[in-house]
């Protein structure tokens, strides 16, 4: 199964009035893998998902899921996809079980099958105790789990998750991540959108970074981190007032001017050449200048930093947070 292309998007454009939501976007998702569409709010992630799930038509380009053209064969596409959107699209006044059985019925499962499938999913998503309570009594995390369960009733081979954990508390988020991982382990192809780098890092095999409707990078999380230029050295000094001086001392080992964060006292630099070698030189230089080091680390850049360097703003800034 793996190695096959499950979702192929080629040169897809979409405008809403004068706003170009997607500009000749191309990417592929491999069967049995998780592809993350990463980008700030308004980047075009949701538009891409809505096109692929047949909710809106594309303007130009070509999109296929398991080789089936999304624009031409919407009805067929709907049989092989599941969608859990940004809203938990479940009926408040029905119980969890009734929601799943309704969805099962709409997929034309036999009544008995709809019932057993619902039971199975309620168990899987830890909703058995709440199964016969109306959804309006559910917590945010429970709603999302039910929503995810509803998108799986038909056992779709391809699942779309549009910001599945937005608005969830950290515990629910981690619970949902576990659920998603277990789906992938069963061979499902997942395309998820997120603005959380940690989420992308945790869940995704491949990432497509979208900003202003364009793909600005893609690759595995590791590849993206490496593409930023390898390791980073981070250190702080015991006497804070010497931080500025320390930054000047180590500048010759850095590709670009070291950054200094006044609050934490952290000085960060991207070393020239081999990280470990630079580390030794840096320690020696600081020692010779009589500056005592408080903490020192050599690390890979976080996806946050990758994102920052790719888009020129952090996802948090883009959200106005």
């Amino acid at each position, binding site marked *: 199964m793996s190695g096959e292309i499950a979702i192929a998007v080629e040169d897809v454009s979409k405008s809403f009035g004068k706003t170009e939501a997607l500009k000749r976007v191309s990417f592929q998702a491999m069967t049995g893998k998780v592809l993350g569409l990463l980008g700030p709010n308004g980047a075009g992630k949701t538009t891409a998902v809505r096109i692929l799930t047949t909710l809106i038509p594309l303007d130009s380009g070509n999109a296929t899921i398991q080789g089936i053209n999304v624009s031409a064969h919407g009805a067929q596409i709907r049989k092989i996809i*599941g969608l859990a959107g940004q809203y938990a699209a479940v009926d408040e006044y029905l119980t969890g079980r009734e929601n799943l059985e309704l969805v099962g019925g709409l997929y034309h499962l036999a009544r008995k099958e709809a019932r057993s499938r619902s039971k199975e999913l309620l168990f899987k998503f830890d909703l058995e105790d709440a199964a016969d309570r109306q959804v309006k009594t559910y917590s945010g995390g429970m709603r999302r789990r039910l929503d995810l369960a509803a*998108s799986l009733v038909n056992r779709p081979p391809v699942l779309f998750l549009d910001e599945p954990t937005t608005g969830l508390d950290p515990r629910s988020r981690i619970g949902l991540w576990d659920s998603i991982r277990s789906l992938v382990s069963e061979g499902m192809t997942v395309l998820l959108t997120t603005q959380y780098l940690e989420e992308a890092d945790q869940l995704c095999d491949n990432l497509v970074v979208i900003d202003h409707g364009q793909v600005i990078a893609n690759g595995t999380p590791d590849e993206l981190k490496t593409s930023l230029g390898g390791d980073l050295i981070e250190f702080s000094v015991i006497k804070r007032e010497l931080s500025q001086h320390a930054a000047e001392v180590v500048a010759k080992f850095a590709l670009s001017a070291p950054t200094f964060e006044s609050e934490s006292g952290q000085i960060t630099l991207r070393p020239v050449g081999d990280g470990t070698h630079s580390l030794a030189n840096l320690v020696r230089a600081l020692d010779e200048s009589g500056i005592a080091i408080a903490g020192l680390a050599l690390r890979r850049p976080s996806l946050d930093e990758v994102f920052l360097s790719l888009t020129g703003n952090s996802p948090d800034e883009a959200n106005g947070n």
Partner: protein
Amino acid sequence: MLYEWSLMTKRYVLRYIRVPALVVFSILQPIMFVVLFRYVFGGAIVVRTSNYVSYLMPGIIAQTAAFGSIATAVGLAEDFQGGMIDRFRSMPVSTSSVLVGRLVTDTLRNIFIVLVMIVVGYLVGFRFMNGIVPAVGMAAMAVLFGLSISCISALIGMKLRDPEAVQSFGLIWLFPLTFVSAAFVPVYTMPGWLQGIAKANPVTIVIDSMRSMALGGPLSRTTFESLAWLIGICVVFLPIAIRQFRRVS
């Protein structure tokens, strides 16, 4: 498709059963209208053909059925806003299922409300004077009227997709539509220019036919005209509303 319709209907009916307040409040308002027009304004309104309460009840019943259609519009708008419609649209579901489920539910609800209103009418002095079959006919006409207005409201709900906007808009068009008609006062008591509008208003035609059935009067012509209007409205608006299901906002 029939199965999808029944599933959607069940979904909406369960909501009314679990939140009875939704139905209770939509009955309280017309009861207030009955009291208001029967006892507050009624003394000042003279109709030639019958006592005022007999004149009033078919009008109020029709108006109640029409106002019930706001629930159709709001319910659909809520489904769009809450993401339910997106879920259904991403599934192999027929385009008519949500709308038909909604209309069937609101028609069932209207049948219930019309029956309650007839009981309320009997409590304040209204009587059917034309026998049982025309009485049932009047109730059926009221329900059909509600359905046809619901078809228009459904289109509004699916176009605007914002429950609050839909609620206000519903009142804005239904108030003049039902008040500038023979619902509460005879048309000949209105100023000349308004008479023209009120007479042409299909609501007047529907209510005239309901009155004829309830109280006796020219049956065949008004009933035929009224049916033509109501079925015509359904035939025009239902397909347009169904098409909205896949249309992007």
